[in-house]
């Protein structure tokens, strides 16, 4: 199979659209695919010279999707920077807050984004393939449940974190305030409602997706399968933890490849640069960068909800553990490499987040009055990691002795997955587009499903993301000439 080398110049700015270039062979099969999205610029320059203590609030404003994740990762980086260990009440409050955020975020993704593909079907017209189509198919009851979950989550985040959307709460050594017993009771009560909602969501998935043979075939099809390393954070028992633990990487066969502390991430992860994109591709250093290929000899890895479940030995809460076992039994054992199963894993994480929320809300230390210790050490360098819904999030700060930033490095959740997303798109395109295939909107949607499962958030705060955003797919011949352009604006319900 030969193609001409085509140079894709990243200097040509993407004007707000995601773009996928698909290069065909002379026979009409897919040779290569390239996903490009606009990137935000100048972040490090923006941060250098500012106080590190501003970062939890600053970085929460970068991301319009998971500000809470940046807030907590930034706060943990400050703990490390100032060499201070928060008291147990503070850690439990942070983790509880984070689980509430997770529950809200995962709910929104499943019902508004990922769910419609399955509940309406991938070939349904785009104007039906959204949350309104879901309501029409499964009933009005779901509407109220989704809105309640979101409303409860946002209200509790404001109650605990001091402000909706951009919390104003994390400090080096703890948090700025605790919770009262009255607040604790409300948090517990709403948490129990949230557990029931998570169980309902898994029942819905079971009924509509797993009960449909076509969907199960779609999930397990080769178009959406590739065998990579998987990354996630685990607690002392190797169970999934969103807030803290060690970062564990397992191979395509499920065996542990590495387990490390956040501060040592650069011993394990390096970044590869391709000439056709500004974004870098993290890869496992000890394996090496072998290109957009999977397998145990390729350092390409994934960090998604499914990855977290693959990288762990189980879930730390009982209901989620049952669902974990059921997923792996259904899909043939661990690890699972079917990208679309990420949606299932996301719902299992939703259940875990709600159970853990209630566990922490009923912990005797959660209303403790010792929720901060003051740092006294001179700051120098600190790393904070959390599991953002989209992948392992790393904040790394360097400062002078006054705590003024001299350097900043962030690896956001989706950055871990950028290489895998490109691979998933190529895999889907190669399977679905063969010589003579007419590329339709439904086929385009099936390619998009390959990366929508990752719930990608490339630039943080950019709203020019592929998915339901304006997206252009360009089919090119081996010489780069455009054969077909499929452009779609944001779909709207009819």
């Amino acid at each position, binding site marked *: 199979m030969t193609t001409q080398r085509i140079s894709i110049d990243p200097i040509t700015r993407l*004007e*707000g659209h995601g773009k996928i270039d698909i290069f065909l062979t002379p026979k009409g099969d897919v040779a290569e695919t390239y996903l490009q999205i*606009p*990137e*935000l*610029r*100048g*972040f490090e*320059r*923006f941060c250098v010279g500012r106080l590190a203590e501003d970062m939890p609030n*600053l970085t929460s*404003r*970068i991301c*319009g*999707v998971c500000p809470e994740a940046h807030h907590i990762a930034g706060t943990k980086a400050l703990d490390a920077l100032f060499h201070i260990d928060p008291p147990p009440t503070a850690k439990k409050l942070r983790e509880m807050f984070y689980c509430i955020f997770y529950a809200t975020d995962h709910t*929104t*993704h499943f019902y*508004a*984004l990922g769910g419609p593909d399955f509940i309406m079907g991938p070939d349904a017209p785009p104007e039906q393939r*959204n*949350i*309104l189509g879901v*309501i029409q198919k499964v009933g*009005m009851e779901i*509407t*109220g449940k*989704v*809105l309640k979950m*979101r*409303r409860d989550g*946002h209200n509790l985040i404001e109650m605990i974190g001091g402000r909706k*959307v*951009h919390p104003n709460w994390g400090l080096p050594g703890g948090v700025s305030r605790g919770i009262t017993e009255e607040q604790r009771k409300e948090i517990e009560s709403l948490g129990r409602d949230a557990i029931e909602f998570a169980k309902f969501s898994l029942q819905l998935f079971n009924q509509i997706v797993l009960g449909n043979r076509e969907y199960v075939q779609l999930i397990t099809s080769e178009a959406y399968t590739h065998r990579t390393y998987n990354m996630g954070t685990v607690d002392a028992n190797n169970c999934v933890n969103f807030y803290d633990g060690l970062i564990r990487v397992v191979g395509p066969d499920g065996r542990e490849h590495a387990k490390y502390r956040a501060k040592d991430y650069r011993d394990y992860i390096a970044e590869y640069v391709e000439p056709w994109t500004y974004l870098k591709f993290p890869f496992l250093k000890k394996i090496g960068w072998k290109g957009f290929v999977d397998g145990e000899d390729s350092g390409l890895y994934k960090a998604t909800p499914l990855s977290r479940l693959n990288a762990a030995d189980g879930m730390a809460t009982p209901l989620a553990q049952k669902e974990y076992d059921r997923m792996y039994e259904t899909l043939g054992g661990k690890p699972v490499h079917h990208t679309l199963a990420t949606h299932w894993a996301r719902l299992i994480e939703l259940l875990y987040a709600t159970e853990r929320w209630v566990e922490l809300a009923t912990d005797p230390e959660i209303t403790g009055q010792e929720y901060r210790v003051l740092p006294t050490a001179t700051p120098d360098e600190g790393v904070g990691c959390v599991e953002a819904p989209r992948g392992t999030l790393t904040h790394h700060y360097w400062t002078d002795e006054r705590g003024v930033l001299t350097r900043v490095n962030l690896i956001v959740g989706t950055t871990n997955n950028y290489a895998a997303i490109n691979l998933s798109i190529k895999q889907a395109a190669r399977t679905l587009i063969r010589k003579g295939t007419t590329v339709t909107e439904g086929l385009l949607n099936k390619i998009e499903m390959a990366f*929508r499962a990752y*719930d*990608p*958030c490339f*630039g943080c*705060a*950019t*709203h020019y*993301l*592929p*998915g*339901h*955003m304006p997206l252009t797919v360009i089919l090119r011949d081996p010489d780069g000439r455009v054969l077909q352009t499929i452009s779609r*604006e*944001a*779909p*709207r*319900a009819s």
Partner: protein
Amino acid sequence: MSTTARTPTCPTRPVADPASERVLRTLVLGLGNPLLTDDSVGLRVVDRLRPALDGWPGLELAEDYWGGLRLMERLVGYDRAIIIDAQCSGAPPGTVSTLPADAPPTRHGNSAHDVDLWTALEFGRQAGAAVPTASSIRIVAIEAADVDTFGEECTPAVAAGIPRAAEAVQSLLIEWR
């Protein structure tokens, strides 16, 4: 082109719904990200409007950072809304447009983690949420030049559009009075 905002005449009585005599609640909402150069323009227009609209009956001025579902949730309880946001439509930077609610999305009209405003409003209505009708929502959009670079100031052409956007908001409020 005038760069000074007109001072609207505040009504002496609250604007009421003729059918029910209930005071109509209006939300003027600036959307944006204060750290992304021209993406902050919606927030800046609201800043400029505050002194001019102080005391306007039934009116709330606010800022927010989200589109889609969260924007819909923010509109609950209001009869009318004006949303101010950056737009990237290819027009010259600083151009001000007044759009209906189902116009092509502004910067915060859509994202891969959410739905567009029209869908979100419909979802809210079907859920029984008291959101304004589509005809009671207007978008005042300011064409941006740079929404991809971190920065705390708008580019000059976009900054020059802020007074015009403020005037557009005030014109709408007078039209609705």
